[in-house]
């Protein structure tokens, strides 16, 4: 056989056994597409190249088949009848992780390597019964395959039988390496703008001109002439600058000079909202900490890949949260998986490399039950939700990292672009190989070593792509596919190398690929020389600029001292991990890129990092007005409460969440779900830092884009308060809470196609101010953050912008995890308290949206769902902090048995969650709190006033508890009862009396079937 022709092996579950995968697809076809398919069976198909002889082929067939479970054949597996067969495989060049593992098995079995042309290509064959051709085509395109990355091959039974087995393999056609081009920037302004758009550079006219002028000025220089380069940038240089200067990498909006005014008031000039409010928060907090404690517990903030804080004398904690929105819109599974495995590399690329401890995720979607029109080019939100979950499930589980927090929010404005937040906590030993672990610097002369995966055309232009609105021109290669096992193996290797002191600095290859990782690492030594032909490629034919910019996954870049190169590469070989020296750091002030000995890029470091012209933006705030409900409130508050806990934003997502690992590593203390049946989400999660120590960290978050419609200042304060309250609820120390800010905004740069840009910029300014005030008051520094500023979709000619969304993620410290507190009341007879004031603050509430739906109102495309209302919850920092401190003392003293945090859905939903978690009843009198007594009953139950906590205390401890929290608005509402009914009274008049089971049923039904 010739080395390039393939052997095909088909493997199926034995006909007498159930095919669980097929049955799953069958159910989804029926429920999701509404097609009454009779039966689905599946087969794994392997196409193997590398010159196998018939004996080898047969040996492999036998070895790839589980004799108890499967049957198989070379070529086609005959014997089953079906109506249509759909083959789903990868497009050429797309990562095929299963194929990669299969190659290992093939080589082990044969006892030889497959050679340079040998590979295993996997695909799946779905055999459908009871469908016609048109239905089979729908199944192929709407369910089984994503045309962005996959190919489908549809055959009727007769066609399948008549045709020989398909032996073709998706090989990237090899061709000569494209030449390096010089880019002519001498054209008019319009031509420059066109060029930027055409090449997907996302550079503004000003930036294009700055680049043109720079290269004209450089042309006379000795170096440039010696290298044979002229007054025009090469494509390598232009692409590298576009990546480095992209909004994604450079945060131009956060660093812009902003003229902000309210209404027609005097404009105020803010020199960078990042400096003023984000870094400003941290500096203010740190000053206060140093004044109080004499030293800071912040180890490394803002300048590395993730924030680092002190934990104990052995370990620091590292935390980073990222978004991966645009890729997840195009390919939900691959995009989201890359989101999680990508953010894993941030803590690992921080300091000398942190081991990964836990993941968090949070998603903003349109309703999976969306039945309205779908702009052309957008995937149905259910498909996006299913794919995003599965991507993060596989990425996290296969990496051996448990998840700590997971939440979902639904609003139809996420139809255009979902928001996919993924984060990772890392644990960094205080010293590594005798050095402080949080410091790193490449030295001139150090080798540049790339570790992990190989470079392909995947993920080119990711950074610039995510810095523009999503439209039909989105490039397919902007999507990368993650391969978590390759990355896990790389991390295992890197931990060994780290502890042996084999590298001096490390960073990850994410957006911008090598251009970004090497460009950043070269800042300290003052230059780098990169030899692109040395970089290992997945296939031939990549242009030099593509090698430089590829965002192919699973790669880290190291700076390695010359004497450590050989031992590092030897260890990599022992672990079967790719590692290659591809250049060296220098001090000549240039990023010097060569390809086969020829200079293809010569970029002045100073221009690369500082040459980007500043942005000037204007912002104008005019408070909006929204409708209040026009109909009387619902008469039956019990039934309304049952409906509330079943709302998409409040219901259980356990059907999805259980597919994520909760406890691998054995360090999870308070898991994502709590209660006697482990089926109610915890207020916060608690993890040990390592085996053998009882101190831990607490994870929580706050997110509420609904308040943004009314005022982003209030929104930001609310999310800080929620994140902090959740920390407190789990038993965290109030003086060791660190925050991460993730801004996902609609484009706030005003322009002809963005007429309300000034308003969105004003929303950003107000959010930052709210964040600053609350975080400084709570003494919680911002240690890391990320912004994603172009969350608009123009698919099908319809513009949909996400509501401004700020995710505040908190990581706190708990000195002894044995003191952790959970949500569920522990025993009948315990006393229930409400801490904090309730006001009429129903604006932006879940309750108002329920009222809107009851009144038959539907949101207009791109507008918030009615009713929005106007009375958004406001934070009273003068009273909340003393209350939290008092409660912290009471928890520390051991008097507090459970804590719930009223947030979305208000007090009513918080009490319901407690009752559901314990499967116990509560008997409470709202008149016990004067503020509750004054409010309309529905407002008392569903207002989302901040600063509140519900607490249960054993009867024997009530006197001590009350004394401890005296003066902080503490209301004794009643007690926990064994009869499982939630009873809320006003004096003797019952407002609500609902069975806990009825709440549970509603809570679980909404998304219980949508798994």
């Amino acid at each position: 056989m010739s080395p390039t022709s393939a052997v095909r092996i088909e493997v199926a579950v034995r006909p007498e056994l159930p095919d669980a995968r097929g049955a799953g697809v069958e159910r989804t076809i029926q429920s999701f597409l509404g097609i009454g398919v009779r039966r689905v069976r599946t087969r794994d198909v392997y196409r193997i190249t590398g010159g196998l002889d018939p004996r080898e082929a047969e040996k492999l067939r036998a070895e790839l088949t589980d004799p108890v479970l499967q049957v198989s054949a070379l070529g086609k597996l005959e014997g089953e009848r079906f109506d249509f067969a759909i083959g789903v495989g990868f497009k050429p060049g797309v990562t095929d992780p299963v194929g990669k593992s299969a190659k290992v098995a093939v080589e082990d079995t044969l006892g030889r390597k497959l050679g340079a042309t040998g590979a295993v290509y996997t695909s799946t064959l779905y055999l459908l019964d009871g469908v016609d051709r048109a239905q089979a085509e729908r199944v192929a395109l709407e369910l089984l395959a994503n045309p962005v990355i996959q190919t489908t091959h549809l055959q009727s039974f007769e066609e399948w039988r008549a045709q020989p087995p398909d032996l073709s393999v998706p090989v990237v056609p090899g061709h000569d390496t494209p030449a390096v081009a010089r880019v002519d920037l001498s054209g008019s302004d319009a031509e420059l703008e066109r060029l930027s758009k055409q090449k997907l550079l996302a550079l503004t006219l000003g930036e294009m001109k700055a680049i043109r002028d720079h290269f004209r000025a450089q042309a006379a220089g000795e170096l440039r002439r010696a290298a044979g380069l002229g007054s025009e940038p090469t494509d390598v240089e232009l692409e590298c600058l576009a990546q480095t200067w992209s909004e994604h990498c450079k945060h131009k909006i956060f660093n812009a000079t902003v003229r902000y005014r309210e209404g027609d008031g005097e404009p105020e000039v803010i020199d960078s909202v990042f400096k003023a409010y984000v870094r400003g928060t941290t500096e203010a907090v740190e000053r206060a900490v140093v004044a109080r404690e004499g030293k800071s517990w912040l180890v490394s903030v803002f300048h590395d890949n993730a924030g680092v804080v002190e934990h104990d004398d052995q370990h620091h904690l590292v935390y980073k949260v990222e978004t991966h929105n645009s890729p997840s819109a195009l390919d939900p599974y691959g995009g989201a998986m890359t989101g999680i495995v990508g953010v894993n590399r941030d803590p690992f690329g921080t300091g000398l490399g942190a081991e990964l401890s836990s993941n968090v995720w949070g998603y903003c979607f349109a309703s999976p039950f969306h039945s309205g029109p779908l702009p052309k080019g957008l995937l149905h939100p259910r498909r996006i939700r299913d794919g995003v979950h599965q991507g993060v499930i596989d990425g996290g589980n296969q990496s051996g990292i448990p998840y700590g927090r997971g939440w979902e929010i639904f609003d139809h404005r996420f139809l255009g672009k979902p928001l996919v937040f993924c984060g990772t906590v890392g644990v960094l030993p205080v010293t590594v190989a005798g050095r402080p672990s949080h410091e790193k610097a490449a030295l001139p002369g150090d080798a540049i070593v790339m570790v992990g995966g190989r470079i392909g055309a995947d993920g080119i232009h990711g950074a610039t792509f995510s810095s523009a609105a999503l439209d039909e021109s989105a490039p397919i290669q902007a999507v990368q596919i993650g391969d978590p096992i390759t990355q896990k193996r790389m991390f295992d290797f890197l931990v060994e190398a780290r502890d042996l002191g084999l590298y001096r600095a490390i960073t990850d290859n994410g957006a911008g690929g090598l251009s970004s990782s090497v460009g950043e690492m070269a800042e300290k030594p003052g230059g780098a020389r990169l030899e692109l032909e040395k970089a290992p490629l997945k296939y031939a034919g990549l242009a030099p600029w593509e090698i430089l910019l590829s965002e192919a996954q699973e790669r880290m870049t190291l700076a390695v001292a010359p004497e450590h190169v050989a031992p590092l590469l030897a260890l990599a070989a022992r672990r079967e991990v790719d590692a290659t020296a591809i250049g060296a750091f220098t001090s000549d002030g240039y990023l010097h890129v060569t390809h086969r000995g020829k200079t293809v890029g010569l970029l002045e470091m100073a221009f690369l990092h500082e040459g980007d012209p500043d942005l000037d933006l204007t912002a104008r705030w005019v408070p909006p007005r929204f409708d209040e409900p026009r109909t009387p409130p619902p008469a039956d508050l019990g039934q309304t409460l049952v409906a509330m806990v079943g709302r998409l934003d409040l219901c259980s997502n356990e059907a999805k969440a259980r597919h994520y690992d909760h406890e691998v590593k054995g360090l999870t203390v308070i898991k994502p779900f709590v209660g006697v049946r482990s089926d109610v989400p915890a207020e916060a999660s608690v993890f040990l830092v390592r085996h053998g120590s009882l101190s831990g960290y607490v994870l929580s978050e706050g997110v509420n884009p609904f308040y943004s419609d009314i005022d982003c200042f209030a929104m930001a304060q609310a999310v800080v308060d929620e994140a902090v309250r959740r920390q407190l609820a789990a038993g965290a120390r109030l003086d060791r809470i660190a925050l991460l800010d993730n801004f996902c905004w609609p484009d706030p740069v005003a322009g002809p196609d963005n007429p309300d840009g000034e308003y969105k910029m004003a929303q950003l300014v107000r959010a930052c101010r709210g964040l600053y005030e609350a975080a400084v008051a709570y003494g919680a520094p911002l240690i890391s953050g990320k912004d994603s500023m172009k969350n608009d979709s123009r698919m099908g000619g319809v513009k949909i912008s996400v509501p401004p969304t700020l995710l505040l993620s908190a990581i706190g410290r708990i000195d002894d995890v044995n003191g952790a507190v959970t949500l569920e009341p522990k025993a009948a007879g315990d006393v229930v308290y409400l801490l904090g004031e309730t006001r009429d603050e129903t604006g932006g509430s879940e309750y108002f949206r329920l009222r809107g739906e009851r009144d038959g109102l539907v949101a207009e495309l791109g507008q918030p769902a009615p009713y929005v209302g106007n009375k958004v919850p406001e934070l009273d920092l003068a009273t909340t902090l003393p209350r939290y401190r008092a409660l912290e003392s009471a928890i520390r003293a051991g008097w507090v048995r459970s804590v719930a945090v009223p947030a979305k859905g208000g007090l009513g939903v918080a009490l319901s969650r407690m009752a559901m978690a314990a499967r116990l009843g509560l008997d409470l009198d709202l008149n016990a709190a004067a503020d509750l007594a004054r409010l309309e009953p529905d407002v008392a139950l569903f207002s989302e006033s901040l600063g509140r906590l519900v607490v249960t205390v054993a009867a024997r401890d009530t006197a001590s508890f009350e004394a401890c929290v005296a003066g902080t608005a503490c209301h004794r509402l009643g007690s926990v009862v064994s009869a499982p009914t939630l009873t809320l009274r006003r004096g003797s008049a019952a407002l609500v009396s609902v069975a806990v089971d009825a709440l549970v049923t509603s809570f679980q039904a909404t998304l219980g079937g949508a798994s």
Partner: protein
Amino acid sequence: MTRHAERLRQFDALPTPEKDRLRREVRVLVLTGLGLNCEAETEAAFRLCGARPERVHLLDLLEGTARRRLGDYPVLAFIGGFAFGDHLGAGFVFANKIRYRLYDQLVEFIERGGLSLGVCNGFQTMTRLGLLPGLDGDYRTPLATLAPNDRPGYRDAWVSLGFDAASPCLWTRGLSQMDLPARHGEGKFLASEVTLGRLREQHQIVARYLGADGAPTQAWPANPNGSPDAIAGICDPSGRLFGLMPHPDAFLYPFHHPDWARRRALGTAGTQGDGLAIFQNGVDAAAAALG
């Protein structure tokens, strides 16, 4: 079995310091790498039981670059994780590497009286290799498989396990019931009726999923994968090799249990995690054999 039983009786009679001394001599090979991920908790478990766990990368064992050979260890742990991403079936590629490159050492280890525990991915690997069920001393022919769960996909939820008191399994001596998390997508134990019959007869079905009534169950979610006869774990006829789908390594401390906070409030949380007993049994059996 009888030899072991006799040694264990002698060990049980020893004073605690003497037991601890012998336990400290038990080296445990914790096989790692290639996508496995439960090394930290497995190591912690064996250490808490007084043994000396050592992490060894499979590739080092294959290439002879490890500090010790497999035969130098009395206990071998096949840990949980996603070796090679579970591609081609859970445990498949990993087991294949062992089959073609380490098999003789492995069989020698077993025939010389070694103990082995396989959890989750480790159980899948042992089954794929044919180490389990190991009928008639044949540790090479796969007679069973761990097939995809009836409800597809990986799932993490705690289950209740019941142990067969009449089982020869050395790892579960004295145990009757335990809660542990099941965390897998492929845990449905399949074998021929003949094989299943022999496993029942020889009490090799060590652990079964229990329903709320305390009886073995086929009902999801108590039985997370639809395993026939509610099979959660099996041993070989000697009782030295034990494979289990749920994770004893995930219940080392009282606070690992999902209902811990309530149990603590009611004073019933205990002082250690139930899962530790399995590791202690294994370590003690190995220590007894040393003594």
